[in-house]
């Protein structure tokens, strides 16, 4: 068993491998001088073997694209005619790929969240994508871009229901479809948009990340632009679970892949103070679906004035519920990993460019 981290940075892709979660070998960067805002491990076409690794890359000069590797980053392929290409009638050009999300229940299906705000579906394991017209044609578009750029950054599918997909976007909030993407409705009841005249609008919230509980997507957790929420009705309504946290601001929301009710957040002080509270770079973990929280990460640094972006964190199941591979990377180029549910961490890499995206995989 090999633990693998794909680390997308401002200036390229770095890969880290470990047999035990303690000693890591770091390689790269690949795609040097290209921003890697999205990485994803998805099921290999045809099943079996190593997962396919996807990278959403963007050069300031040469534009954005998606490449895939079927040998864990040894070689890369880019679709000759492009992977994510806006149809001519949209008169729009792709700016950035923010999210590459496989569908665990449907091998071959990959979702891409992009800028300008758009959702794309691939049925060939991420080689080519089609624009989800139902969201693109939604009357609420264009949504206001978040500070980092307009993005569909979260895609949650339902293993039991082909038609049901939830997305979150910055800004715009949460939208759900029940018909496979044909029609979408906002799903933000209870989520605050304190920065708007109406703090509880139908849409326009700046949801930073949504994660589904291990028990299934009926239970969801959201880290908002101020506000941490839980939904017990698949996103129809949201209630605050921020009590007990040092701050309700942050970008990361992770749910344990095997233990229902276990989630992690990585608080930052506030919108106007985007640094760890008191300089303590720590995760906060709940074992009870957000009712109570505990600080974890005894090896993480004090005096840290960096931040962690919304996709610069991940957790992957290892088969041992007590030992998922939990990881995050910081804007000052440090990557940390834990195999004891966040109790302790190992510093995997330092002095990288800003970490924009991290994904973890366990390869047989």
């Amino acid at each position, binding site marked *: 068993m090999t633990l693998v981290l794909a680390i997308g940075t401002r200036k390229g892709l770095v890969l880290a491998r470990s047999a035990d979660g303690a000693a890591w070998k770091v390689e790269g960067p690949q795609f040097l001088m290209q921003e890697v805002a999205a990485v994803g491990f998805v099921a290999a076409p045809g099943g079996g073997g190593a997962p396919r690794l996807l990278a959403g890359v963007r050069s300031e*000069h*040469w*534009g954005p694209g998606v490449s895939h590797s079927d040998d864990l980053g040894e070689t890369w392929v*880019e679709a000759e005619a*492009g992977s994510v290409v806006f149809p001519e009638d949209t008169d729009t*050009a*792709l700016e950035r790929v923010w999210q590459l999300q496989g569908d665990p229940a449907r091998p071959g299906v990959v979702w891409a969240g992009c800028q300008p705000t758009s959702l794309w579906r691939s049925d060939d394991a991420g080689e080519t994508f089609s624009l989800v017209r139902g969201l693109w044609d939604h009357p609420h578009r264009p949504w206001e871009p978040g500070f980092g750029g307009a993005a569909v950054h979260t895609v949650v599918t339902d293993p039991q229901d082909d038609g049901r997909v939830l997305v979150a976007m910055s800004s715009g909030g949460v939208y759900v479809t029940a018909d496979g993407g044909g029609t979408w409705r906002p799903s933000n009841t209870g989520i605050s948009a304190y920065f708007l005249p109406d703090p509880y609008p139908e849409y326009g919230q700046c949801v930073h990340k949504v994660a589904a509980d291990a028990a299934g997507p009926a239970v969801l957790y959201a880290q908002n632009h101020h506000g941490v929420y839980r939904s017990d009705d698949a996103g129809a309504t949201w209630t605050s679970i921020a009590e007990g946290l040092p701050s309700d601001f942050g970008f990361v929301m992770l749910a344990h892949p095997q233990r229902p009710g276990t989630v992690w957040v990585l608080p930052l002080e506030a919108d106007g103070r985007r640094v760890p509270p008191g300089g303590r770079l720590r995760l906060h973990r709940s074992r009870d679906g957000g009712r109570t929280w505990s600080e974890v990460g005894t090896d993480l640094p004090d005096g840290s004035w960096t931040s962690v972006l919304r996709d610069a964190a991940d957790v992957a199941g290892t088969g041992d519920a007590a030992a998922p591979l939990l990881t995050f990377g910081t804007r000052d180029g440090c990557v940390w990993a834990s195999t004891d549910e966040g109790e302790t961490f190992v510093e995997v890499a330092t002095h990288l460019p800003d970490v924009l995206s991290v994904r973890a995989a366990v390869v047989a």
Partner: protein
Amino acid sequence: MTGPGPVAAQGVGGAAPSPARSVAVVRPAALRDVADGRSTVTVTVPTVPTVPTVPAPAAAVTVGRVLDALAAAHPRLERRLRDERGTLRRHVNVFVAGDDCRALLGQDTPVPDGAEVVVLPNIAGG
């Protein structure tokens, strides 16, 4: 300019107008991982059929049509230069006979016979 252009004039003499022209596109080192790795890619640009009332046929070969030909032959390379709307990427510069096409007619800039099309990226950033 009105009247027959050079190719049309040749046509009057009985020789068929050239249906296409080869144009050398010189690319920077950063783009040599795409296609065959050489610094220069030669593309064949179909020439527009000429009639006496249109400008000289040399003008029918433009930066845009050179890039269209590049897209047909090497789509991954062309996509580095233009987005899917056909717009030249912001930090990509295309020079024709030493002049930046943005300072001329953009992608409508004519590419004279024998002129190279040179792609150069802006230098910027940190």
